[in-house]
């Protein structure tokens, strides 16, 4: 299967993975992008922007652009330069020897389905859930992690958003288009969202805040009938009579695949440097999977570009790339 060894495989298809794909494809590295498999709980081909509406801060779009539309454009651009895109979920990687092994489908078969000299990890991050039994049972029946997907169904109703960051404010603001009232439940007495988002949320008449509370239970058998909250200082419990609960309490990097093989911090984010290098030579990481600080589409795209350049230079230094191929003029 020697002829099946790629120069480069990119795992993930958000702004980081697809930007890496555009650069790698333009450098004639014929990258294979394994974009993930659509799922509401794990993979999200196209990344987190697929679950948003208007993206107002991505440079170049004066009037903003819809998240899914932006990502479809990234994807089309990568494909145009010859990136091959595979809609599948990676189930196992072997980084112990080169070429690296990547499995899709059954992880227990001995031989990897794909191999590559260099690997770019761009698996991103996903929404954290509260971890309540009722939350899982009621997903799609009033509990949601995607306001843009599900807000529509809560017209004229009272709903709750849990979280205090930018994504929580974004969800709350979006939901005011449909809901009669949106209660933001936050465990502290101040938000960690950016100033502009805080101001927008606090100015909105439909949004009210339930400070210093955590969600302890979601009520209802077949659909959400209320949310039980607890005061973090007094322990006093009360029930919010809401019909929907939107969870936006933060993110967790998608790094389970790499546990024990790539260095990560206490929260599971991959550790990179210099540049996009990981601790395994030939493996590079970009985007939210290694960034818990900025987490923006533009920073993810920027680091995706860096990873492609780092990978190309590394391949070149090893002589893996055809000697006749001249260095890319980026």
């Amino acid at each position: 299967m020697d002829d099946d060894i790629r120069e480069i495989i990119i795992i993930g298809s958000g702004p980081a993975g697809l930007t890496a794909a555009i650069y790698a494809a333009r450098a004639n590295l014929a990258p294979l992008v394994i974009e993930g498999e659509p799922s509401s709980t794990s993979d999200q081909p196209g990344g987190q922007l697929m679950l948003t509406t208007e993206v107002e801060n991505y440079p170049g779009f004066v009037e903003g652009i819809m998240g899914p539309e932006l990502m479809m454009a990234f994807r089309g651009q990568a494909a145009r330069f010859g990136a091959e895109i595979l809609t599948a979920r990676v189930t196992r990687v072997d980084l112990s020897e080169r070429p690296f092994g990547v499995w899709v489908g059954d992880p227990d078969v001995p031989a990897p389905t794909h191999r590559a000299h260099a690997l770019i990890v761009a698996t991103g991050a996903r929404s954290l859930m509260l971890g309540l039994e009722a939350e899982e049972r009621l997903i799609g029946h009033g509990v949601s992690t995607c306001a843009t997907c599900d807000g529509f169904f809560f017209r004229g109703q009272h709903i709750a958003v849990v979280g205090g960051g930018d994504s929580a404010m974004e969800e709350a603001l979006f939901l005011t288009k449909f809901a009669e009232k949106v209660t933001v439940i936050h465990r502290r007495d101040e938000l960690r969202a950016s100033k502009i988002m805080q101001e927008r949320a606090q100015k909105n008449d439909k949004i009210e805040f339930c400070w210093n509370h955590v969600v302890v239970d979601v009520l209802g058998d077949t659909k959400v009938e209320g949310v039980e909250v607890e005061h973090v200082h007094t322990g006093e419990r009360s029930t919010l009579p809401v019909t929907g609960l939107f969870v936006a309490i933060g993110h967790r990097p998608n790094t389970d695949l790499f546990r024990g093989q790539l260095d990560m911090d206490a929260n599971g984010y991959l550790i990179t440097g210099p540049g996009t290098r990981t601790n395994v030579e030939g493996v590079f990481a970009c985007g939210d999977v290694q960034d818990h600080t900025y987490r923006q589409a533009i920073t993810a795209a920027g680091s995706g570009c860096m990873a492609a350049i780092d990978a190309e230079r590394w391949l070149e230094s090893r002589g893996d790339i055809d000697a006749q191929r001249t260095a890319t003029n980026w």
Partner: protein
Amino acid sequence: MATTTITDATFDEEIASAQEPVVVDFWAEWCGPCKMIAPILDEIAAEHAGRVRVAKLNVDDNPETARRFEVMSIPTLIVFKDGEPKKRLIGAKGKGQLLEELAEFI
């Protein structure tokens, strides 16, 4: 057969008259995950023509039907057989997983 479009107006008749199970895809233009599964559903409809039908229902244009079946999240797929809802799948899934979930109807 490719996927067809179903509306509030045509829903009852189409479901009642179908010989094969009908997978109704509740979707909307503004839903990213719906767009991700649309091509997969097209493939399933084409590959299993005659055994299963896939009908797309736009929830923006057809709120009646979405309300009637208490759809609160999209994409939602509801499988109708003999005029009755038999199974409900919520959220985007890959082709393999979808086919597995639909296996009993195909």
